[in-house]
């Protein structure tokens, strides 16, 4: 009986220690979660600032002049639009058949690399 009481007491002590350790572990994990949440919140704030900056920098009144002056881009005029059927009729199907992407890729790469190979 006495031995049983001693063993029971030991089990209780071991369980208490285990619960205490688990509690400490949970607290540490909670601390890590809090730290990660804080980090996520900080990153979220950074993202909101960067999105605002992106929107600010892509304002049409800023992009428009750059596109016109440095890239020579202009808005398409109505007579520059045409239906694909009209193109087919005027130019003929064979002239509209573009090379497959695989075939076109090398010449594009050559051009990018400054190669002198004429386009295929």
């Amino acid at each position, binding site marked *: 009986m006495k031995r049983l009481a001693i063993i029971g007491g030991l089990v209780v002590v071991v369980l*208490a220690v285990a*619960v*205490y350790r688990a*509690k400490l572990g949970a607290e540490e994990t909670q601390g890590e979660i809090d730290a990660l949440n804080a980090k996520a*919140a900080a990153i979220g*704030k950074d993202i*909101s*600032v960067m*999105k*605002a*900056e*992106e*929107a*600010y920098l892509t*304002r*049409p*009144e800023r992009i428009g002049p750059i596109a016109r002056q440095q890239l020579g881009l202009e*808005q*398409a*005029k*109505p*007579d*520059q*639009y*045409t*239906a694909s059927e*009209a*193109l087919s009729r*005027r*130019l003929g199907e064979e*002239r509209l058949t573009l090379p497959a992407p695989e075939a076109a890729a090398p010449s594009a790469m050559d051009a990018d690399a400054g190669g002198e190979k004429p386009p295929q």
Partner: protein
Amino acid sequence: MMSFGRPREDVWGPRRARVVAGMLALVFIVIVGRSAYVSVNGPDHAASAAPSAVAAATRRADIVDRRGELLATTVPGWSLAANPSAIWDAGEIANELKTVLPKLDLIGLTTQLSDRKRQFVWVQRGLTQEEKDAVFSLGVEGLQFVEEPRRVYPRERLAGHFLGYTNIDGEGLEGSELAFDARLRAGGEPLKLTLDAGVQFVIEEELEKAFVDFDMKGGAGIVVDANTGAVRAVASWPAMDPNRRGDQSKDIRTNRALNARFELGSIYKPLTVAAAMDTGVLKVSDRFDVSAPVKIGAALVKDPHPLPNAKSVTASDILAYSSNIGAALIAQRMGVERQQDFLRSLHLLGGQSHEGPQTASPLTPEVWDATAMATVSYGHGISVSPMAFAMTYSAFANGGNYVPPVFVEQGDGAKIEKSQVMSAETSAEVLAMLRRTVTEGTGKNADAQGYEVAGKTGTAEKPGPDGYDPNRNITSFAAVFPASRPQFVVLVVLDEAQPRTGDQRTAAYTAATIAGKVIARAAPLLDVRPVLAESKVEAASLRVSEATTP
């Protein structure tokens, strides 16, 4: 008696000792038990009485356009506070702060900082990062930065009036920020407006350019999807930057598209024609004599310019060449009641409700007699907001239905509120007349190549203390495009536009020109393909072939 020979304390001593020992043991057990409980469960008040130092406030939701382009967002911001009890020389600190925060009220701040009984006063709220850095570099004691979210509008003036703004505490005060305040304060997903930032920019830029060509007091421009009521652009000029709301005058802050009322003039005439045709009192073949002024009620109705073949004109001629006499004669056939009923069905007499920023309520004739009927038929004597009026033309584009304005993108399959206000035949016939007005009549300057503009000019004298002032006009142009497959309504309204070139200040030379430019630029952004004559398509194709032929 020796039985009492034992000292009294000896008799009670062991019992008292046991009692005390027992009590101490009980206290010990309670302490140990409580310690064990606390070590496992934590203190009872941890959750309730000790909240985290900074509770995460719900972040106000962003506002984006229909394509997800950011229009309004919340970024971390800072405010500057001071502890006067820790400040020795309030005047010196106020002077130093003034060097980096020039808007500060020096005297007021010095007074506040001199009150050493206080431990907290705001110095300036809503600092920019640059201002914060500048204050920080001063190294002044007794100051502290308080983090406060700041509402910003990264595209500055784009849709500034429509977006509105919040106060320093993030509460909506104007525009969409006010109208959708509850939704925005709940946080979560961005509020997706029906606006298209590209189209909005086009109409704002064209209004801005209009000021180069015309001396004008103000303007408004609207683009609406006629089938759904989705508002793709709503602009007011002068433009307002909501980031700088405090710097801008009330005149600039006024949203002329929604919150101002105008007598819009002859753009009402198509409504008069439609009402009469739908009632059956007018046929397209009916002819009118508009060669001489007519008296209707107390009003002597005149045309500023005589019409071609004025003795025998059709309703189409009346619209194409904008005859006041013709419109009044048509209204006379229809009568006051029918005119009112029709305008009421279009919500021009009030009663319109929709989600989002509201429009100014209309001003209508106090006595709607024959005189009022005649003037209203050509758009005088009745004042409405441009937004309210723009929605009426949707009926000419969608087979005769009135649709209310929609400002927030609806999910797929959302029900479109609409009410039939005229028959599909009437709608189509008036639309054809509007197309003719642009190709042959007063709207020629609005004829954007390829986009089949159908529309009507309106020139209304502004009312003054001594009656209508012929030198001050509201000019407008209301349009539907493209006429062969109508999709959009455009309305341009200019307040006292006077061409700097010396041209006439009628809508044909002012608002129609602006509307044409807006349509030419906005149509591609709205996925409207131009309709061109076959020869032009062929010519374009030929140019492509020449350019690509080695």
